[in-house]
């Protein structure tokens, strides 16, 4: 079972402290290629959440049977096989959703986030904790990619949630800037993604530095510092 404290640490690590995109800087390739709009970023993250939860729980359940020396090939085998099965099941049973998420699922196999979490967390922790780790690492990726996608989209073409009609046919993208907005191509191209990602990392570091500075200025509170780790 999982304690409240454990759950909070896992959630905090995934969403903020060990955020895959702006702290660990993992999985840059799909990140740069896909986040040309917010919808794509969200969809890639949703697919990643699913794959990470499944592969983490599989590896955590089998962790006692996997010899240490060959763990990496076995992890790759498990992740690749499960992703392919998920891909096939999606294609067969949820075809509409597959058309939207489908192109992202094979991308995830190559994503080092999945292997990194399997190796760093699932191989050492019980299945339940590992499932939550997979989900929250994915949630951390979700908000980062959604924000990055939204900024690139807004700067690049002046819209928000472009392509939402592919997911929910009834909805229309929001035109935030006037139709006459000329567009800013750099934001839509990979260099723009690098620049904005750099800004987000700087923003996160600035917030963390400010929080540390505040904590230092306050009188020390031994009870709190002993509990956190």
């Amino acid at each position, binding site marked *: 079972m999982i304690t409240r404290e454990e759950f909070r640490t896992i959630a905090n690590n995934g969403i903020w402290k060990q955020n895959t995109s702006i702290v660990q800087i993992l999985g840059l390739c799909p990140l740069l290629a896909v986040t*040309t709009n917010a919808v794509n970023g969200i969809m890639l993250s949703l697919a990643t959440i699913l794959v990470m939860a499944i592969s983490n729980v599989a590896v955590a359940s089998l962790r*006692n*049977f*996997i*010899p*240490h*020396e*060959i763990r990496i*090939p*076995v992890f790759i*085998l*498990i992740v690749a*096989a499960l992703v*392919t*099965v998920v891909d*096939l*099941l999606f*294609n*067969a*049973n949820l*075809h509409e959703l597959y*058309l939207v998420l489908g192109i992202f699922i094979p991308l995830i196999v190559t994503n080092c986030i999945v292997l990194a979490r399997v190796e760093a967390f699932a191989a050492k922790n019980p299945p339940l904790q590992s499932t939550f780790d997979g989900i929250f690492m994915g949630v951390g990726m979700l908000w980062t990619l959604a924000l990055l996608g939204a900024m690139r989209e807004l700067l*690049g*073409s002046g819209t928000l949630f472009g392509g939402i009609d592919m997911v929910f046919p009834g909805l229309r993208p929001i035109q935030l800037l006037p139709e006459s907005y000329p*567009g800013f*191509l750099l934001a*839509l191209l990979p260099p723009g993604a690098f620049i904005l990602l750099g800004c987000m990392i700087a923003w996160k570091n600035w917030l963390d530095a400010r929080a540390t500075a505040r904590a230092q200025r306050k009188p020390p509170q031994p009870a709190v510092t002993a509990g956190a780790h």
Partner: protein
Amino acid sequence: MTVAPQEFSASGMALRTAAILFVFVIIFTGVLSAAYQWTKPAIEASAAEEKMKLVDEVLPRGDYDNDLLSDTLTLPPTPELGLDEATTLYRARKGGQPVAIVYEAVAPDGYAGKVKLLIALRADGSLAGVRVTQHKETPGLGDYVDPKKDKNKATPWIGQFAGLSLATVTDKGWRVKKDHGRFDYYAGATITPRAVIKAVHKAVKWADPQRDKLFARTGGTQ
């Protein structure tokens, strides 16, 4: 793992590890092939439906009554269509009479590489419709050749092809207005429409002299 080191020699250890890896490979290969076999019929059905959806974009389903996906002709690699591998041409018929053919073409000279097209040509030589099926054109600039990305939803750029034929448009007409042709374009991105227009023109010209063979007018397979 917690195995006492004295129990195994180096080669014994290697053998044991190899055996475990082998067991994992067998298990997950089994899982994969089971999933593949189980999902195969559903995936094939939705792939066919997917193709039909694409065909629907260029040719209305009410115009023909045959099973278009099984009335086909395999085209060898055709340089006139920009194709360097074999593709399939689909024939639409109504009451056994040829209505249209649906075939692929590639514009090799897009701004960012190849632009893949699906073309429907009616038996009278006029275009029923053209769609871009795959491209890498710049988002927000040249990608308006794909009606999903075209800001003008009511009359998308690609709709200009409908109804045109070699009889109604001269060779010089198959160009953008900037090059004194008849096609509109959006300022700032002329390379992509130029490539698409050129490819469609070539594809229509390619089909024209061999229409009897392509439409299988005599003794169809129906």
